[in-house]
């Protein structure tokens, strides 16, 4: 308890508190700007923390992290430009709400959901860091393989209207992900002797390309169209009034987000998606989804901010990052000579409590800062598209790529922008491509590692309970997807006749 008070003293000292507020505001802005991701912001800031105290370093990085995960929602809702990959899910319902003139309400819901989701995950972060770490030890290569497969099956079956088109997108994503250096045997794969292709398809520039650069191309298609974006002033209070209706979605999505955050390699995008799918599944009015259902915004935003606390659990407890952001923060830990794991809890308890406190406070700060700043950021939405389009294109192409120091990454953003644009014209879902880029390495690596085990064989995937559960769930999800599609097709037939 003494340590908790000591940590609180460190956190609430004027300069640390001011730094945290600045970090959350910066995170919010970075997250809201399409093409700028939290990972990139953290990555660029990590070298800056080399010379600072460890407290300053983690207050700064965690403030940016939590702020940016939420910030993506602002532009996703108001402009259909997800500032971060995960906000793409928020945009599905958020943008139609804006088009109906409910942009302010959507922002209010997103802000409230983000704060609550983040706080729920903090409870888990604080009270379950050590016990939850023990669960992760049960996961061997076969378990991770099955888990990754299940996650990919979910996006394949549920992200588009057609399972077949989902399959095409997933297969494309997996194919893209295999380009580069084989992660196990370290030999070139699909590089055709081009040195740059050894880089492979870097996930962040490719995903930003798919979701943001393609948006710029779409804007170019109808520059003259105006009026899609409306003023958003007012409507913030309605969010509070909706809380009794939304609390089930918020608590369920927060739990999903925390759980996904704890599992390594699966980030906020998956958490948002699963929560969104769940909210849609239990909804009494599923036909409203896609046309501006508040539950959709709420599910996506509470889930992705819940990932922040969740993803820190394995990072602190075991040194395994839960997502790309915590990977960067882990880098900063090592720079400061800190070894994550039980030792950290024993030797640096005050730092651990400062980290807990910083995440709690960042998520709390999102509420006042988000509500007051979203209006200002919303002003950008009123800018004429002919100014917006080139800005978005330049930010999306350079933002994700500039940190890598090579022209190849810019081409990736541009080419994936084109791919995203064309695929969307053909009604192919983009999410499975983004997801496959992230999950394919996890799945492939663990599948091949499984086969290296002494008892390798088919029965290995059926005799281990966690593995079997994941595989069965994957099959069920695909079956469910196909049934849903048939039902939809039947409905269309009825309407036609």
């Amino acid at each position, binding site marked *: 308890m003494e340590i908790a008070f000591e940590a609180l003293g460190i956190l609430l000292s004027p300069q640390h508190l001011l730094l945290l507020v600045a970090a959350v505001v910066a995170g919010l802005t970075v997250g809201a700007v399409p093409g700028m991701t939290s990972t990139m912001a953290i*990555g*660029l800031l*990590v*070298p800056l923390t*080399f010379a600072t105290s460890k407290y300053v370093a983690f207050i700064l990085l965690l403030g940016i992290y939590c702020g940016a995960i939420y910030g993506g929602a602002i532009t996703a809702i108001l402009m259909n430009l997800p500032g971060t990959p995960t906000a793409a899910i928020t945009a599905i319902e958020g943008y139609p709400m804006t088009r109906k003139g409910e942009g302010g309400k959507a922002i209010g819901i997103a802000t409230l959901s983000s704060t609550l989701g983040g706080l729920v995950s903090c409870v888990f972060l604080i009270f379950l860091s050590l016990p939850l770490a023990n669960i*992760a*030890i*049960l*996961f*061997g*290569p076969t378990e991770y393989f099955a888990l990754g497969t299940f996650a990919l099956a979910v996006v394949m079956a549920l992200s588009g209207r057609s399972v077949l088109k989902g399959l095409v997108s997933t297969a494309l994503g997996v194919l893209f992900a295999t380009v*580069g*250096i084989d*992660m*196990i*045997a*370290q*030999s*070139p794969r699909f590089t055709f002797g081009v*040195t*740059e292709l*050894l*880089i*492979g398809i*870097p996930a962040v520039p490719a995903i930003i390309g798919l979701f943001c650069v393609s948006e710029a191309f779409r804007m170019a298609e109808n520059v003259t169209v105006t009026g899609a974006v409306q003023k958003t002033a007012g409507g913030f209070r309605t969010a509070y009034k909706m809380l009794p209706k939304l609390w089930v979605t918020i608590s369920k999505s927060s739990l999903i987000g925390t759980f996904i955050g704890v599992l390594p390699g699966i980030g906020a995008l998956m958490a948002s998606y699963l929560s969104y799918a769940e909210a849609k599944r239990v909804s009494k009015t599923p036909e409203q989804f896609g046309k501006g259902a508040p539950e959709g915004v709420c599910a996506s935003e509470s889930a992705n901010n819940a990932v922040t606390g969740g993803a820190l659990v394995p990072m602190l407890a*075991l*040194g*395994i990052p839960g997502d790309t952001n915590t990977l*960067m923060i882990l*880098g*900063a830990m*090592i*720079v400061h*000579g800190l*070894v*994550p*794991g*039980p*030792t*950290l809890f024993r030797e640096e308890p005050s730092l651990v409590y400062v980290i807990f406190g910083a995440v709690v406070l960042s998520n709390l700060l999102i509420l006042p800062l988000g509500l007051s700043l979203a209006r200002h950021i919303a002003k950008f939405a009123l800018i004429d598209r002919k100014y917006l389009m080139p800005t978005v294109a330049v930010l999306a192409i350079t933002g994700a790529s500039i*940190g*890598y*120091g*090579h022209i*190849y990454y810019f081409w990736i953003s541009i080419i994936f922008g084109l791919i995203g644009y064309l695929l969307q014209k053909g009604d192919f879902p983009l999410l499975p491509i983004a997801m496959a880029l992230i999950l394919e390495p996890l799945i492939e*690596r663990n599948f*091949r*590692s499984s086969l*290296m*085990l*002494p008892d390798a064989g088919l029965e290995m995937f059926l005799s281990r309970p966690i593995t079997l559960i994941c595989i069965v769930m994957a099959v069920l999800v695909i079956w469910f997807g196909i049934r849903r599609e048939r039902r939809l097709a039947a409905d269309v037939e009825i309407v036609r006749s």
Partner: protein
Amino acid sequence: MSIKINRRELMLTSAGAALSSLLFPGAAFAAYPTRNINWILMWRAGGGADTATRIFLKYAEKMLGKKVIVQNITGGGGAIGYTAAKSAKPDGYTLVTIQGDLPKFEPKALAPIKIDDFDIAAAFAFQSPVVVVRADAPWKSLEDFVKDMKDNPGKRTIGISDIGGTYHQPTALWADAAGFKLKAVTFPGSPQQAVALLGGHVDATVTWVKPNIPYVKEGKLKFLGYMGSKRLDDYPDVPTLSEVGYDVVWEHPYGIGGPKGMPKEALVALEETAKKVWEVPEFQAELDKLGLTVMRKGSADYRAHMHKMQSDMTKALKLIQG
């Protein structure tokens, strides 16, 4: 116009250099550096190679008297960064981290990058892998473990990172020297290896020392053997592999170099700087925090180390490919 300015700058610089060597005859290397230096790093910011390099540069900058601007050019297992560095102008103002992954490109046919594409100034740090098992494992020593592996061929597994990678190569050489059949399982990196070992998914790991220290302190894991040439200061009871009788020394180094054809004075100045940094106690303490040890190898020694690594790698890869 721009040519004129350049020429004037050039004249001023050389005049300054001539003047300073007149004024300070002892300072033989005052001619380098006269301006800030660019540095190419082939791994991401915040990673192991990045951290080691930045710690070295913190001290080297003060001694060189100029800023060193680090640029992380990542991807392709380091191929992109090395390619950018080797095609840079060899004027001593574009330098690069020359580390233990440079020799891999030739034997693995990954990219057209050779050790001799670079001028090598000096090394500054290294780390060696260690053999780790669970503390409650039945093996008391490295010999016990090797004997058990020989008695149960194909039953005991060793966790490594990638096939043919940093840990697999010395492990393959060890298996060859000790005469056991290696059953390797791959993991993304040290933390995942440690967790897999704790969870009983593998019987041993070959990995860096640092990530395992907390578990060793808690009495969950133990070190059986170290692959450096000398024992670790913090673990004097852990023998090196060569002491036990397996002729394997694997020291993964970090050092300085630049594109081939650099001015001699620049190379000498950098080597002298590195020699001074080696002896700074704070530098050594910072390396120790990362699990690294100072490597005192100058230009010629370090180049020889790289070539030795390459021939070891070639042998290891041949063993791995069967």
